[in-house]
C-alpha cells in the first residue's frame, strides 16, 4: 500500500477536533495550553456537550481560550473565574460550567474565589494549568514556582525566606468537603494526554451528576518562560515539577 492508498482507504485515528476552530493559537510553540485546548474540544464533542456548556476563561495566557474552542465563553477578570462560574451555573443549573485557569489566576489573585467555590461544592469543573510561572506577563514568579527556580522577578532563584513556598493548592482543594474529585495530571506524553483526557471527562460527568466541585490540575510546561525547548521543558518538568507536584488522584469520591 502506498501512503496515498492508506490515506484514501484507511480510517482516521486522529485529527484536529471539530470544535477547535481554524484560528491559529497564539501560544508559543510546544505550549501545554494547546494540548489541553485540543483535548477539551475533543471531550466536549465526544460527550455531545457543545449545546450545553459554558467555559470561563481566565486572565493569563489562556485569556483568548474563547477564540479557539467554539462553545459559549465568559472572559472573567483576573482570578474571578470561579465566582463567575458559580453564578453562571446556579442560574443555569442544566449547563456544564468549567473554568480554565493558570497558577497565577487560580492560586494567587483568585485563591479566595477558587477555595470558596470549591468549599461550597459548586457543581463546576476547575481546570488548573500549573506551569510554575506567569507566562503572559513575561515569566514572573508564580505561587507555584519551585524553590530555586529562576523567573524574571526571582532572577537568582525563588527563596522561601523571601517568597514563601511553592503552593500545592490542589492539596488544599482535596481537604475541602465540597470537592468530589481532585487530580493532578500532565500532557507531556501520549499516555499522559490520554489520562488527562479521561480525568477531564470524569470531571464533566461529576458536574452533570451534581456531585460537587472537580479540580483537574495539569502540571504543564512554559518553555518560553523556562527558557528551554519544548522537549527539554518536558524533561525538566518530569525531573523537577513532578517530585513537588506528584501525579495522580488526590481525592476521588466517585469511584
Amino acid at each position: 500500500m502506498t501512503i496515498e492508498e492508506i490515506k484514501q482507504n484507511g480510517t482516521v485515528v486522529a485529527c484536529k477536533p471539530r470544535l477547535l476552530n481554524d484560528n491559529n493559537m497564539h501560544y508559543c510553540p510546544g505550549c501545554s495550553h494547546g494540548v489541553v485546548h485540543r483535548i477539551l474540544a475533543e471531550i466536549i464533542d465526544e460527550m455531545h456537550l457543545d449545546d450545553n456548556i459554558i467555559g470561563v476563561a481566565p486572565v493569563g495566557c489562556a485569556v483568548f481560550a474563547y477564540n479557539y474552542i467554539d462553545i459559549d465563553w465568559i472572559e472573567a477578570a483576573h482570578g474571578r473565574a470561579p465566582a463567575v462560574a458559580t453564578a453562571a451555573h446556579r442560574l443555569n443549573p442544566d449547563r456544564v460550567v468549567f473554568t480554565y485557569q493558570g497558577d497565577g489566576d487560580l492560586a494567587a489573585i483568585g485563591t479566595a474565589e477558587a477555595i470558596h467555590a470549591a468549599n461550597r461544592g459548586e457543581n463546576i469543573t476547575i481546570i488548573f494549568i500549573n506551569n510554575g510561572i506567569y507566562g503572559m506577563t513575561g515569566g514572573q514568579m508564580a505561587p507555584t514556582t519551585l524553590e530555586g527556580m529562576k523567573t524574571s522577578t526571582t532572577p537568582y532563584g525563588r527563596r522561601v525566606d523571601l517568597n514563601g513556598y511553592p503552593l500545592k493548592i490542589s492539596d488544599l482543594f482535596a481537604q475541602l468537603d465540597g470537592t468530589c474529585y481532585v487530580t493532578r495530571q500532565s500532557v507531556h506524553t501520549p499516555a499522559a494526554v490520554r489520562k488527562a483526557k479521561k480525568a477531564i471527562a470524569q470531571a464533566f460527568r461529576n458536574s452533570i451528576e451534581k456531585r460537587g466541585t472537580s479540580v483537574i490540575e495539569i502540571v504543564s510546561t512554559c518553555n518560553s518562560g523556562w527558557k528551554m525547548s519544548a522537549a527539554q521543558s518536558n524533561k525538566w518538568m518530569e525531573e523537577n515539577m513532578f517530585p513537588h507536584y506528584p501525579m495522580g488522584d488526590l481525592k476521588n469520591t466517585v469511584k
Partner: protein
Amino acid sequence: MPKVRGAVDINKERCKGCDLCVVACPCDVLSLQPKEVNDRGYHFAFTVEPDKCIGCAACATVCPDGCITVYRAVEK
C-alpha cells in the same frame, strides 16, 4: 500476516515546529524542515520516513496545535 500501516498529514501552515511530535514518534517518521519555513516562519514538521509510520497517533496526541491527521490501514 496482516500488517498495520499508518500515514500522517501535517497542516504545515498551522504547525509551529515545536518538535514534540518528532520526539513522541516511536518510529522516527517525523522531522522538522531543516531549511524551509511556513508563512509564519516556523520550521514545520514533515514525514521524513513516511513508510515507517504505524498509525499509532502519538504525534497527534501530543501536538499542541491540532495540526496532525493520522490514518491507519491494515495491509493483508
